[in-house]
């Protein structure tokens, strides 16, 4: 189509439409015009034919022209009827016509369909496309088979076309832009329809398959006659001016930082973002097709903040950030989603008249200030009445359990809690006179003894309940003598009071980290990529310690090879679908969450995670920044910037925290995978196996943000960056084509001339480098370090594993002499091994290795890490598509369900009913096995979808 000025195209369209209506309405059965003026009652008024039923987002617009319905290919459905309604369909002769723009080719695309295709049983017709070729398929009673006509020339995405299929009882034809491009005489006689299949616009849908169109439609027509070629050419000519060529790409403004959405309370949230230049603050907010509002002000600023109020619960709000361009024309960001069902704060205490004593208000404040514990579970012993319990709930975000041995007092306490509006949802009374409490181990964030008396349960028992890494016990001992308290504390860990001593008023004990427990601070456990936390507790028999949110709804689809959850210092960090969560790892309490629609990464198999954590901070890559998020509060307290590049914008790629350093890489903008189309990244296809690379590796001080060192050489494969024993290892391609490519997501065939490089972690000094042929690693390239050995592994196109182990000596002695030795032996090949992958399905060829001690576990085998000696080839069967993770004594994976292989007993157990997703999501840390819900979208009927923490029975009894 030629480019025409867009003068009053609306008027032209109306005139052209009217002329056509007058000229050739003979045989017309339906005409559906997707323009705002045809909307009615959340649906579309048909120009003729049946009124369609809409579902999903209804985005009918003429801004800019032409008027059209925009289809995202995700949740829209335009249903005309059912093939059982024979009056809706032509019996023999037919014309199906559409003005269409396709934005994404599909293997089976539909524009209008009334079809069923089950192989042996084919019925109906479909006007659509097969991959990038327009098509028209039809089945007549004579053949009972669909004949597919396809256009010989591929269509271009983002371009408007006039597409028509006709059939006159013998001749089947496909027209593109008024020209016949394919025909067939295979069919004859009446059209054979399926008996019960939807008639839809904007999709290919039969009883088994549903492929939605991603693109736009201006009009669809249906006739019970085959329009002649001349008519179709005239129809094309009459309207082609309405369609710009190609359709202008929508202009999007992207904030330079953010947006983030933080809840203020159940009905109020604040959206924050930054722009490169000073702009007015404006948000367009939609909660439905006809519900739209604009928020903000005209004040020019770079740092924008909008408080959205009166938000309704359990709604999907969509919003655009709006900025004027240089000409003052408003330009919108892409549309962001904010779902108000993702609210995880404790229920607010109702504003009832205060019935509590002023003493309880003061004591509660003192307890919270002294302990600095405000979230999670609080156990209260020795309550004189319910006042302190109510005040602790009011003044904190904790859920409180009042433990009461006297049944006669229980009912009154419950009534008091009920009167204060906190009974149940925020506070309960548990009646238990027993010295051994029924409460699970390690769940209490705070234990309070109110009445000054040593409680009837022992100090050892209370210590059992305290969460490691910060769980705090506090008692007011003013009313009793020091001897009583000394006797009660004697022999228990609580004896090591962290504040006060018997005889003083406040006694405080804070439980330290659990000895022998591990952390999961990076994608594969530690930055050595061993997929092992070295946690000594998690093995043997496990039992649920907690379960609950987040469930599947806020999570990305299970198949996208998403970043692993992390757990450090008793906290659990989960990356949802553009939401971040911080949980208490010991009881599942959600400490914080916020919406961050520009934070997302997928296919970590060919890239790396965008998260890592240390004791108090979660680090998350976000565009050209790395955020430092307070692990306890979720406050975005730090921001690190990338070293600038002179040849274009960059994003933060890899990140790791180790030895007091924050390591990062710089990658070309928009190179990461996002997984927004339900990808599984399982196949040998360029758009699935391409590696994300970086052009700069650097270290900064995470406390000050000071840059410490930079390294640049080749195109660094993000999936290979590995730290261990004060060194950092990676593979880089030194092929100039790879280094200068405009996008850093690169076909493995370009990533030639690969070198393994070792740097000193503290200084960035190069220790050694060796070239090696890793071209066999086609599907993926992993790198793991342990025992002064670096192992590279991957699979070839035939799904054969290839593993190479190299010497990686530690730096010893002076820099000069040490370097000499290291240089001479560093990177020397120690052993290599190849074998056909053993599983044969569900990512068997993508398995990431696990290293525990000297043992290197890969695929179905294990080897000695240093010598390569085969140790065993009988690893338990793993049916699911996830990968293994490990503690010191056990390996975890998805079989049918969550599964564990205990290395001491060689026993394989399953936790029936619960599944993990298609990458790494069961992490042993802090003495717990933590398994956030990651099976979202799984079509299987596994019974339970929940996040869960398992505790070893040995620890539960501890």
């Amino acid at each position, binding site marked *: 189509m030629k480019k025409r000025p867009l003068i009053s195209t609306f008027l032209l369209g109306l005139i052209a439409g009217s002329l056509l209506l007058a000229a050739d309405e003979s045989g017309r059965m339906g005409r559906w015009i997707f323009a705002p003026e045809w909307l009615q009652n959340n649906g579309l008024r048909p120009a003729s034919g049946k009124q369609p039923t809409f579902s*999903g987002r209804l985005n009918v617009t003429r801004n800019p022209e032409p008027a059209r319905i925009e289809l995202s290919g*995700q*949740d829209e459905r335009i249903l005309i009827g059912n093939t*059982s309604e024979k009056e809706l369909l032509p019996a023999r002769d037919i014309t199906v016509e559409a003005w269409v723009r396709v934005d994404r080719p599909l293997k089976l695309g539909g524009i209008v369909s009334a079809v069923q295709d089950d192989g*042996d*049983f084919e019925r109906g017709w479909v006007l659509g496309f097969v991959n990038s070729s327009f098509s028209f398929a039809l089945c007549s009673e004579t053949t*009972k088979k669909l004949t597919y006509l396809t256009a010989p020339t591929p269509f271009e995405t983002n371009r408007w076309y006039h597409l028509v299929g006709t059939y006159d009882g013998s001749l089947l034809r496909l027209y593109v832009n008024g020209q016949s491009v394919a025909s067939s005489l295979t069919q004859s006689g009446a059209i054979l329809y*399926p*008996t*019960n299949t939807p008639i839809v616009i904007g999709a290919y849908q039969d009883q088994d398959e*549903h492929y939605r169109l991603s693109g736009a439609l201006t009009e669809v027509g249906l006739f019970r006659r085959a329009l002649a070629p001349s008519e179709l050419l005239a129809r094309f000519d009459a309207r082609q001016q309405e369609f710009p060529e190609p359709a202008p790409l929508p202009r999007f403004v992207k904030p330079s930082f953010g947006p983030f959405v933080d809840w203020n309370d159940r009905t109020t949230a604040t959206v924050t973002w930054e722009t490169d230049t000073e702009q007015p603050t404006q948000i367009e907010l939609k909660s439905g097709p006809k519900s739209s509002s604009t928020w903000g002000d005209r004040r020019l600023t770079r740092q924008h903040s909008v408080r959205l109020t009166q938000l309704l619960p359990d709604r999907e709000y969509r919003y655009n950030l709006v900025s004027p361009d240089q000409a003052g024309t408003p330009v919108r960001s892409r549309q962001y989603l904010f779902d108000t*069902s993702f609210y995880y704060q404790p229920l607010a205490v*109702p504003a009832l008249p205060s019935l509590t004593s002023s003493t309880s208000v003061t004591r509660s404040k003192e307890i919270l200030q002294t302990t600095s514990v405000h979230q999670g*579970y609080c156990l209260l012993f020795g309550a004189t009445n319910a006042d302190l319990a109510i005040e602790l709930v009011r003044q904190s975000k904790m*859920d409180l*359990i009042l433990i009461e041995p006297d049944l006669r007092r229980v*009912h009154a306490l419950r009534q008091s809690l009920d009167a204060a*509006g906190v*009974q*149940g*949802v925020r506070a*309960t009374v*548990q009646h238990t006179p027993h010295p051994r409490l*029924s*409460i*699970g181990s390690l*769940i209490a964030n705070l234990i309070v003894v109110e009445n000054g008396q040593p409680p009837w349960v022992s100090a050892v028992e209370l210590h059992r309940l305290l969460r490691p890494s910060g769980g705090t016990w506090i008692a007011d001992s003013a009313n009793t003598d020091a001897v009583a308290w000394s006797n009660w504390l004697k022999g228990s860990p609580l004896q090591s009071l962290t504040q006060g001593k018997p005889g003083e008023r406040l006694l405080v004990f804070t439980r330290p980290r659990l000895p022998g427990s591990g952390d999961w601070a990076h994608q594969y456990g530690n930055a050595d990529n061993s997929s092992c936390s070295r946690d000594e507790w998690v093995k043997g028999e496990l*039992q*649920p310690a*907690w*379960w*609950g*949110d987040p*469930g*599947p*709804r806020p999570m*990305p*689809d*299970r*198949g996208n090879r998403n970043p692993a959850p992390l757990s450090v210092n008793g906290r659990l960090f989960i990356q949802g*679908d553009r939401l971040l969560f911080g949980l208490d790892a010991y009881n*599942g309490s959600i400490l914080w969450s916020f919406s961050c629609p520009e934070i997302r990464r997928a296919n970590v198999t060919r890239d790396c995670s965008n998260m890592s954590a240390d004791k108090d901070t979660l680090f998350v890559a976000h565009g050209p920044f790395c955020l430092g998020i307070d692990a306890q509060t979720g406050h975005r307290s730090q921001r690190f910037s990338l070293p600038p590049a002179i040849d274009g914008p960059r994003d933060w790629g890899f990140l790791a925290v180790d030895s007091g350093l924050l390591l990062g890489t710089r990658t070309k903008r928009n190179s990461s995978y996002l997984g927004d*189309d*339900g*990808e*599984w990244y399982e196949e040998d296809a360029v758009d699935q196996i391409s590696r994300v690379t970086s052009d700069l590796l650097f270290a900064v001080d995470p406390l000050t943000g000071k840059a410490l060192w930079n390294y640049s050489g080749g195109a660094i494969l993000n999936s290979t960056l590995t730290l261990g024993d004060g060194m950092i290892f990676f593979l880089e391609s030194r092929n100039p084509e790879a280094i200068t490519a405009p996008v850093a997501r690169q076909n493995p065939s370009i990533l030639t001339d690969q070198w393994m490089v070792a740097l000193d972690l503290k200084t960035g000094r190069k220790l050694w480098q060796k070239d090696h042929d890793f071209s066999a690693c086609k599907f993926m390239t992993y790198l793991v370090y342990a025992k002064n050995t670096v192992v590279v592994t991957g699979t070839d196109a035939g799904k054969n594993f290839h593993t190479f182990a190299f010497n990686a000596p530690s730096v010893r002695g002076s820099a000069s002499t040490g370097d000499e030795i290291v240089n001479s032996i560093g990177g020397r090949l120690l052993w290599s091994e190849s074998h056909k992958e053993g599983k044969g399905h569900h990512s068997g060829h993508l398995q990431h290795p696990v290293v525990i001690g000297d043992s290197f576990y890969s695929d179905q085998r294990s080897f000695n890490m240093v010598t390569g000696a085969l140790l065993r080839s009988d690893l338990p069967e793993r049916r699911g598509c996830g990968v293994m993770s490990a503690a010191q004594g056990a390996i975890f994976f998805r079989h049918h369900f969550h599964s564990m292989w205990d290395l001491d007993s060689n026993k394989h*157990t399953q*936790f*029936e*009913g*619960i599944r993990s997703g298609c990458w790494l999501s069961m992490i042993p840390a802090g003495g717990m096995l933590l398994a956030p819900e990651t099976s979202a*979208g*799984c*079509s299987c*009927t*596994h*019974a*339970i*979808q*929940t996040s869960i923490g398992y505790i070893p029975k040995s620890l539960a009894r501890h």
Partner: protein
Amino acid sequence: MTLQNFCTALILSVGLVHLTAADWTTYRGDYTRSGASTNPLPGTLVEAWSWTSTHPPQPAWQGEAKWDGWNKVFDLKPRQIFDRAFHVVVQGKRAYFGSSADDQVRCLDTQTGKVLWTFFTEGPVRLAPTLLNNRIFFGSDDGCLYCLDNLSGELVWKVRVAPEDRRIPGNGRLISAWPVRTSVIVQEGLVFATAGMFPADGVHLIALDAASGAEKWRQIQTDLPAQGYLLASKTRLYIPAGRNNPAVCDIATGRRTRVVEGNGGTYALLTDDMLVFGPGQTGQLGAVEDSSSDQLATFQGNQMIVVGDRSYLHSDTALSALDRKRYLEFARERKRLSSRQNALGKKLKTLGTKPESASERDALKSQLTELGKGIDTATLGMDQCLIWKVRSTWQECVILSGETLIAGGRNEVVGITTSNGVVTWRQPVRGIAYGLAAADGAVFVSTDSGTIHCLRPSRQTASSSAALKP
């Protein structure tokens, strides 16, 4: 046996729950979860009173994922939610419900809405209680079953179903590791209930003596959880399993007889000869005949009511009446043909492409074509069993009371005439109506805001009704 227990035994040994026209003694009226009552509701219903909880219901689970990315399926239906409202049961002039927010069971006067008594448990009460004579039975997330005197609210007995008393954080509350997440059935003097979430820890199915709470038998499931409302026939118990499919057990022993096939969900209905359950992944009810495990037919819908040869199907967008008997005849024929089609298809595959088997292949293809026609005919026949169909936005629940279908949706409940699908009255409610009960000449509506609305026929319209625009 105490005197109290002896009296209870006398009361409870009477036998099956027989639904009277006035009572609604368990979720959806009876143990088949029919949702049907003979209770006539003439004219327009208006609000007589309402009661609202301090906090709204706290369902254990949030919804399903937003989509199935690999299969490109959207609008996935929640398959493990059963507690979005405080479902009401009614006996005489008293209405009862449990609370997932404040852990209490309440008794309200059906005439005034006044709270007559409350009873505290140590965990959320997520499912409607069951009434029999002067007793009320329910379970709690605290892992215990309770039997109270339904007039006074006094405890008669309490039994821990959980194998041990271990409290851990579950769905945001400190509860038993074996919460009671199914309803209670009381039949032939026995109470049937379950406790447990995680099959690896054991999910316990028990029968207790209704009078004393003494345990009669106990079975432990190690493959499925138990979540949702139990169903029962005289010989079988049906145990919903959240996202998975219901298990069927011998009611005399609790021994598993089968797990039916389908796409999971906690909604279930037992008709004379089949189990209907869903909503599966996308809002489909599957029907499984009593004698088999695999599905006979599927229906696009969320809930169903079966009365005689007619069924009413309730979906996200429509309410329809079907000639059920004919529909099932066609469905059986289609299933028979489909089975044959599958078998011949497999046989065709085994023949391969060898020239010597060409004639056999052709014969099979011909048979397959004929079978296909037969399937089409049967499918068409099924489609023609529709008696009426109306557009509906009241997609959350439906019951039948007399000759009126009552359907609930967002902020509204409506009455619909069974003969033609015409809406005869509408009544606003606070929130989304997820629960309905019809008894004592009234309808009790439970919403996600924690409100119980009592609707009664207005005096002005009790003797007449007029159609409203749907």
